């Protein structure tokens, strides 16, 4: 996997006064924060605080009514998912969004689609270009499979896998795209301790070994405080805290927000 560094500034992503609402319901109100190159940036907050919506805004699944997004210095009102992907933003979803009808291998291969250029005609004829490209990308994918230690389920249909492994496969699919910015939506939700440890290990290695910038949503405070460089706290769609883990931990507003809900 290639390291993709933007020399111009070390702020990769800047969100300015983002507001988002569905019909009348306000999901996000006037939220601003930034993400720096190579950091692990966590977004925390009680359920329904708008964390997932935040990610959806970042990679363009939702389009905010107000506010601007600066990605790699480029200003835009909103992102478009496919374009975001082509620019190196990959993500996983809170409730797994794998392609149920396909094998693990194929699922991860779809992560390479943006890199695969051969048209449908050469695909149909198969020999030559398309095939070489297929093999090249298969090799890349196999590296990811090796990295995430899922060799043994390579050819299993994802539907048949236990939850923890599915999460891992989804991460694999995201990594296969060789992203520079990786959005993880509760990658450890519903995992047992062992699975969580593995997942932590992988996230850290992705971040350190391949220099991928990571925006992380996670409920497990222990994990968040351990691995993130900086933390944003949302509550009812508003930002109530932002800073280093320790700062956030001792922020009274945050504490009160969390006292209300049990996390």
């Amino acid at each position, binding site marked *: 996997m290639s390291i993709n560094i933007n020399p111009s500034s070390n702020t990769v992503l800047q969100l300015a006064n983002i507001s988002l609402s569905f019909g009348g319901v306000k999901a996000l109100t006037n939220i601003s924060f930034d993400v720096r190159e190579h950091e692990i940036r966590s977004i925390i907050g009680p359920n329904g605080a708008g964390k997932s919506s935040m990610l959806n805004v970042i990679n363009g699944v939702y389009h905010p009514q107000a506010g601007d997004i600066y990605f790699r210095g480029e200003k835009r009102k909103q992102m478009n998912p496919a374009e975001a992907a082509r620019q190196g933003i990959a993500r996983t979803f809170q409730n797994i969004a794998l392609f149920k009808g396909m094998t693990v291998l194929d699922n991860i291969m779809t992560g390479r689609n943006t890199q695969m250029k051969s048209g449908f005609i050469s695909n149909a004829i198969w020999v030559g270009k398309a095939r070489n490209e297929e093999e090249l990308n*298969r*090799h890349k994918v*196999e*590296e990811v*499979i*090796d*990295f995430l230690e899922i*060799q*043994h389920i*390579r050819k299993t249909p994802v539907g048949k896998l236990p939850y923890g492994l599915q999460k891992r496969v989804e991460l694999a699919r995201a990594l296969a795209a060789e992203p520079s910015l990786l959005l993880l939506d509760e990658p450890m939700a519903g995992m047992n301790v062992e699975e969580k440890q593995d997942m932590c*290990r992988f996230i850290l*290695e992705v971040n*350190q*070994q391949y220099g991928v910038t990571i925006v992380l949503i996670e409920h497990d405070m222990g994990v968040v405080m351990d691995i993130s460089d900086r933390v944003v706290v949302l509550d009812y769609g508003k930002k109530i805290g932002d800073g280093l883990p320790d700062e956030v931990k001792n922020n009274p507003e945050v504490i009160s927000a969390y006292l209300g809900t049990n996390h």
Partner: protein
Amino acid sequence: MTKVVKTLTFPKLLLEHAKAIPKRPAYREKYLGIWQVTSWEDNLKEIKQLACGLASLGFKRGMNLAIIGDNRPKLYQAMVAAQCLGGIPVPLYQDAVAAEMIHVLNDAAISFAIVEDQEQVDKLLEIKDQAPVLSTIIYEDPKGLNDYVQSYLHSYKQIQLLGKTFSDEHPEFFITELEKGKATDLSVILYTSGTTGKPKGVAHTHQNFIRAGQNSSQFDHLNSEDNILAYLPMAWVGDHLFSFAQAMVSGLTVNCPESKETVMSDMREIGPSYYFAPPRIFESLLTQVTIRMEDAGTIKRKLFELAMEHAKKVGSDILDGKPIGLIDRLQYAFYNLTIYAPLRNALGMSKIRVAYTAGEAIGPDLFRFYRSIGVNLKQFYGQTETCAYVCLQPDGQVKYDSVGIAAPGIEIKLADTGEVLVKGVSVMDGYYQRPDATAESIDADGFFHTGDAGIIDKDGHLRIIDRAKDVGKMANGKLFAPKYIENKLKFFPFVKEAVVFGDAKEAIMTFINIDFEAIANWAERRHIAFAGYIDLASKPEVYKMIGECINKVNVDLADDPMLSHAQISRFLVLHKELDPDDDELTRTRKVRRGFIAEKYAPLLDALYSGKSEQFIETKVKFEDGRDGSISATVRIQDASTAMESV
């Protein structure tokens, strides 16, 4: 096939193959989803680069190179690389915990180590202070290691790059160093599993293993077309003979599985033509077969049973080429099409020409099963000190209770204690820096004392009954051969381990270790609920069933005039599985009877004092290395003995 030359070494064999069969695969390794092939010429290139790299780091003639990891081509290549420089590879058991490694590292004065991955690196770093000489660690798989800062850590790749530049500067270096090698140089140091005391380093010369390899290869006509699956510890003499010596001699292809979990499926993919496994593996395979067949439909199961009966009847005779009636042959052919062949296929044994087993006595039924479905399974005999090369079973004269005849170039005789003595090509140079120990085990006439008690039957086949020292006398002065009885017990699929006591005692007692998988399955089918290992082990039903097994053994013993007195009178089922990590078994899973006797003294006393149950608490080491203890009240039961048949 190469002639035996006084100067022949493994590196020189490498050169020969690289010249003679450059394009043939030397190694295959399942990696990134496919079998990555290393041809003999590439093999040479890789090894040359590594060797030169090691040299440039200061690895010199006479030094020892520790090798730790699962079976990987790069680690096998590392062995040859060391030998090219006149160094000596020292493979360690990769699943040993760090502490266990200290002794070997110091005993062999290891300064260089080539290891597989982060796991092994961490172990070495953990004990580096206790192994002062250790100065350089080279890892094959960089995963997770990139933020390790230690200056003495290098990746395999780096070293090979170093080697490239080095050999560019000194083009002649590699070949000259290689040529300096003599057949009488040490080629490897293998550490004994150490049933008793600290492991000793067994030092072998090139010619030891080359001759053992050549003779055995000729014995079974191995050639560069053959395939073997390398999945047993590299530190174990068997693997060194099969996956290294014989491979280097005959040029056969060594195939390395993707991971421990995938060995079975990888075996299926490769379909080796030459295969070794200790009895326990053949046993667990058979257990799986029986378990899986139990869920089959009635018709299929009936067919299977019929096929198995017919196989019992004529299978092994057909394999031994004995004359068989036409009808039987036709029947066999039919079953072969419908059952045997698919079964061999499912086990990945379709292409096997020769399969060996050794290390432990193998159950007759087990042994016959594989032969009868057309797998040419044979036994051999040997130990670390003899390159695992003493006796072999020739095709056509295979018996389950013998280990075959003296192998080419080997002379065997029995001491009057019944101990087996061996002399010949494969006998070690000596224990590494232990002349005392060497003197103990190799006598003036050059015979190595195996420590096994055996007898030689009428057609010259050797039959091992027990460890010589374990063949004790009972209080009444009659012969007591615990291992012999233990093996008989272990032939039952439900008995995983058995420990028999009775030396200098008036009665014979035994601990049983149940095979959890098999018995759990057995229990489920009888709707016997159980909470876990301990609970299951203490179930009356289980005791009843084990009791029956023991009775069978007693009946069996009664038939043998020499042993009819040595019947089991009482037994108990242990509440925990005997485990190498708790030192109850050796790494090669031999029971340490003495140690167990001490550790479970209360139970043993209870057996002899006639109690019907006994509480005990035992220390255990958990997988993650933590210490803990488990306790249970173990039931004890009398066994029904059989009348001596006159």
